[in-house]
């Protein structure tokens, strides 16, 4: 697999890049934030081992000969999520912002510092979101969560273990990964009363729910939330019953792109996750597998109207404020 990709993309890659690519390809890294951490870690390793060839300028050479092909390789292993693209964008902006810095070592040190700062920033942001969101959970609440999001489970656990709130959690799950079971395991360890169900029963359980807490892969400039496939359905049903929907998301995941439907930019999972044509189906001898197509989308986009509030490290915001935050961040970096 690696050799094939190398041939397509061309060039040699740092072992850290290959390792990270394979981890992504095999789906070992769960959650977009985990992959962002992975990406930052990989970038730091690559940068540390990089030496600019004689007569070449570090910044431009690193960008052209190392960064771009590596990212291309990673993208082919698994499409980079919007939050990863954001991270790369900020990384490159910082890199090119150092053109006046003297000495290659100085640039490398500063960039490594930038990566360390970014990692720490995301970690602190998640910590802050955990505190803000957990404070919204009150006694006797029934909280609905969907699939698995490390941030969301940490919020619920914090509300139980540190804030000593007594509430119930409904875990809504769906195939093909059934990641909700992970959430369920963590909740049980924390001693939280939980109910597990499939998304097919969503409408039934929603009447009992008074708060929905979701994670997100990215928040788009029009306030739409890009989340795991099915999340928009959860938000829609919650909205139809006037149940507030909280989306927990670090501001580094706010993007300037706009997307109104889920097809514009998405990721397709392998067909085999949904259906094994020879094993699961009893096909007539005449019919061919070409007749059957599977749709295994990984993400969907929920309109901002369904979201009551975004819980971010800078506080709770309405979805309409996304462009303001990105603009402020951009101005600050510039």
């Amino acid at each position, binding site marked *: 697999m690696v050799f094939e990709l190398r041939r397509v993309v061309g060039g040699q890659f740092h072992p850290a890049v290959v390792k990270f690519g394979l981890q992504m390809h095999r789906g070992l890294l769960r959650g977009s934030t985990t992959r962002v951490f992975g990406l930052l870690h990989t970038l730091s390793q690559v940068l540390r081992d990089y030496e600019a060839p004689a007569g070449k300028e570090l910044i431009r050479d690193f960008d052209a000969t190392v960064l771009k092909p590596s990212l291309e390789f990673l993208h082919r292993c698994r499409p980079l999520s919007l939050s990863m693209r954001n991270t790369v964008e900020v990384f490159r902006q910082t890199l090119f912002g150092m053109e006046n810095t003297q000495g290659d070592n100085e640039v490398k040190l500063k960039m490594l510092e930038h990566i360390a700062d970014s990692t720490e920033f995301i970690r602190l942001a998640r910590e802050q979101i955990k505190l803000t969101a957990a404070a919204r959970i009150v006694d006797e609440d029934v909280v609905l969560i969907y699939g698995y999001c490390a941030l969301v489970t940490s919020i619920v656990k914090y509300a139980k273990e540190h804030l000593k709130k007594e509430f119930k959690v409904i875990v809504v799950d769906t195939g093909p990964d059934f990641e909700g079971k992970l959430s369920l395991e963590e909740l049980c360890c924390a001693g939280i009363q939980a109910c597990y169900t499939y998304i097919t029963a969503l409408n039934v359980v929603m009447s009992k729910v008074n*708060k929905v807490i979701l994670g997100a892969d990215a928040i788009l400039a029009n306030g739409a939330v890009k989340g795991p496939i099915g999340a928009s359905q959860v938000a829609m049903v919650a909205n139809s019953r006037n149940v507030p929907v909280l989306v927990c998301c670090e501001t580094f995941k706010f993007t300037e792109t706009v997307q109104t439907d889920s097809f514009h930019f998405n990721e397709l999972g392998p067909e085999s996750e949904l259906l094994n044509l020879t094993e699961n189906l009893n096909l007539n001898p005449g019919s061919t597998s070409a007749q059957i197509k599977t749709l295994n989308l990984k993400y969907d986009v929920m309109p901002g109207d369904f979201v009551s509030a975004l819980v971010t490290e800078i*506080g*709770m915001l*309405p979805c309409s404020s996304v462009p303001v*935050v990105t603009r402020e961040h951009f101005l600050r970096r510039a």
Partner: protein
Amino acid sequence: MRKTQRMTDEDIAKHFVEVLRTEKDPSDAIAAIKTVIKLLESDESETFLELSRELNRWENALRSHSEGSVASIISGFEQIQQHMTKKDMDRTDMSKCRKFMIERGKSYLVEMEHRKCRIAEELTSHIADGMSILTHSRSKNVFRALKLAMQRGKRFKVYVTESMPDKSGHRMARELTELGIPTTEILDASIGYIMEKVDLVLVGAEGVVENGGIINKDMSKCRKFMIERGKSYLVEMEHRKCRIAEELTSHIADGMSILTHSRSKNVFRALKLAMQRGKRFKVYVTESMPDKSGHRMASELTELGIPTTEILDASIGYIMEKVDLVLVGAEGVVENGGIINKVGTYGIGLVAKALKKPVYVLCESFKFVRLYPLNQSELPAEFKYPASVLKKSGVNLEEEHPLVDYTPPHLITFLFTDLGTLVPSAVSDTLIKLYL
């Protein structure tokens, strides 16, 4: 032979009142039917046409001379006329005819008695354990249904609106409490606030109109006081406030009808300025219980010479179709651009949205607060209840009337502030720039 003394309208009304008094708690429609039967017994019409005219006269008499609900009386009369004057009736012999009609009327009453139980019966299956039910004013059918559900062992909670001006909800609440049903009496203006806790709304109807709509009581609310907010305005604020009024004036056109809730200095100032600029418009002010602050607002506006009508808090739904613009103040503007204001604002916002009327909020930017309520129950208690109530020990806040409610941003068209005219989402943008 002509009847010597025709019954006067007053006599007919007296009959009706007599029935209401002697019968144990009949509905107005049933009382009307009983009155008709009684009148028929002493009727001396000689032709069927004459009898029909008499029936019409009785109906009009009851409508104009009794305190009963007109919608109920009309429907009662229509039902009984349909029932009594079936085609198979022999219309030649008037005495036979009358006898036949009286019998029909009585059998109808018996049938109705039986049917009433069926209403309660049918409803019981829709009430589930743990439900919160909101009901308005006093309705015998609703009462009967709730009583039956209670007897069947259903456990539920009831919110009853106080239902001004006659406070009939108060009686309903008392009767339900006597039955042992947990009941909370709420202000008429609190319906928006309470709605999120409610699973089911039960209302009786005085009449059901042909398109399936119902006519029911126009209502309102109760006592309790509001903390007088002692505000010392700074000179700069004084200046800025003028800007709010200034900006709004251009949005007021001649001939407009404006609805405002409670008393707001900003709204008052804006209306005053518009008046001084020669705009001619009409204002509806809600009475705004429990402190009747709208009453003061209305008298102040009238003093200025603005045509002002004070309306019941409960009649916002009724008045909204006549209104071009809703103007409210705000006690606080929260992070998402929603507002916290005198209880009843949310209800007005909802009705305005449903009838597609613009809602303008007038407030200074120092009222922006870093608070993000998701619904009414998330409003902090100190916003909702006066300090005197919070200080008392052992108070069940669920039983207290909230003084303010939260109006979410999607119900608000514009906020007129000293920073300029903002859409609700711009509030959050302003706060982000301030705090980020």
